[in-house]
């Protein structure tokens, strides 16, 4: 069994997911994790799927998607990743303010500095408003208030605001 990481990027239109998954199903590939969104109107999808087909075979089968020249497809074999042990704490970070270069790098640099790991990230530019929302795992021994202060200081220096709050999971 092989894992493939597949990306499909480009001009959005109805049917891209249907066509992609039809090809993958025909090759006997099983879709595991996937994510798709529109980034400034561009279709952007990443899939990890498992099966016996070789990467070249998958790429060839998906080639018709790229025929019109508006979509690019990549297929890469990837190793299985162990599920990380959940030893730390989970947080949600919001940063928003006037758009300017360097907001993401300055703020997430403070997260990386303490060994924090971003597990999900969305950024949006809406008019002049730049917005970042990140889900972050911090190591168990992290001084969270110090990290929050460092993030706020980095945000202040760029004239944007930042809030860090616990990610709430309701156990049912």
């Amino acid at each position: 069994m092989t894992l493939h990481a597949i990306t499909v990027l480009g001009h959005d239109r109805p049917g891209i997911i249907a066509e992609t998954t039809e090809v993958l199903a025909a090759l006997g590939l099983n879709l595991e994790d996937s994510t798709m969104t529109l980034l400034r109107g561009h279709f952007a999808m990443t899939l990890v799927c498992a099966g016996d087909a070789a990467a070249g075979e998958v790429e060839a089968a998906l080639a018709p998607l790229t025929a019109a020249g508006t979509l690019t497809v990549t297929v890469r074999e990837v190793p299985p990743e162990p599920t990380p042990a959940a030893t730390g704490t989970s947080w949600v970070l919001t940063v928003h303010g006037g758009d300017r270069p360097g907001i993401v790098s300055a703020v997430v640099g403070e997260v990386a500095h303490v060994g924090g790991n971003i597990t999900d990230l969305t950024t949006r530019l809406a008019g002049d408003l730049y917005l970042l929302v990140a889900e972050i795992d911090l190591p168990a021994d992290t001084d969270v208030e110090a990290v929050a202060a460092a993030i706020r200081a980095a945000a202040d220096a760029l004239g944007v605001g930042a809030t860090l709050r616990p990610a709430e999971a309701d156990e049912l």
Partner: protein
Amino acid sequence: MSDELVSSWTESRLGVEGRVLDVVRAPAAVLATLGEVVDPSARSTVQLAADLVATMRVSPGCVGLAAPQVGVSARVFCVDVSAHPKTRGHHGTFVLCNAEVVEASRNERAREGCMSVPDLTGDVKRATRLVVRGQLPGTAEEVVLTAEAFEARALQHEIDHCSGLLFLDRAAGAHAIHPRKTYL
């Protein structure tokens, strides 16, 4: 008693004509600034209260408006959820000064928008049962009101504005922000 006082309140009590003001949009600094505590009986506060109601009235779908949204860094907001389909109980139109949450319980997640963030919506967890303390503009009477469901959400959203917070600061996660699909 406070609930009845708030329910019976109308903007005609202010005795001044409200003006329709421009609504500012993020990233305006005033939206990220902690609002000043106000004197509820000051003439400027009464005028601001009337202006907020007047601006809310002419804004399609608007169920609440806070002073920072009209460029004034003050702890004043108006709410009127009476015509909204998600509303259960409500207190009609009212303005509160220096409001604070006293009790909050029964959290639920729902999608919110904001006139100051016109292009995005977000999923935010908020209390559906809420007790808020504040003062009425003009008379400065202190009121404690109990709100539920959509009115409770609107109150928390407006109180956040008065604290320099947007719904974006409460987004439930990285996939909780959405480009707006319909504009009112």
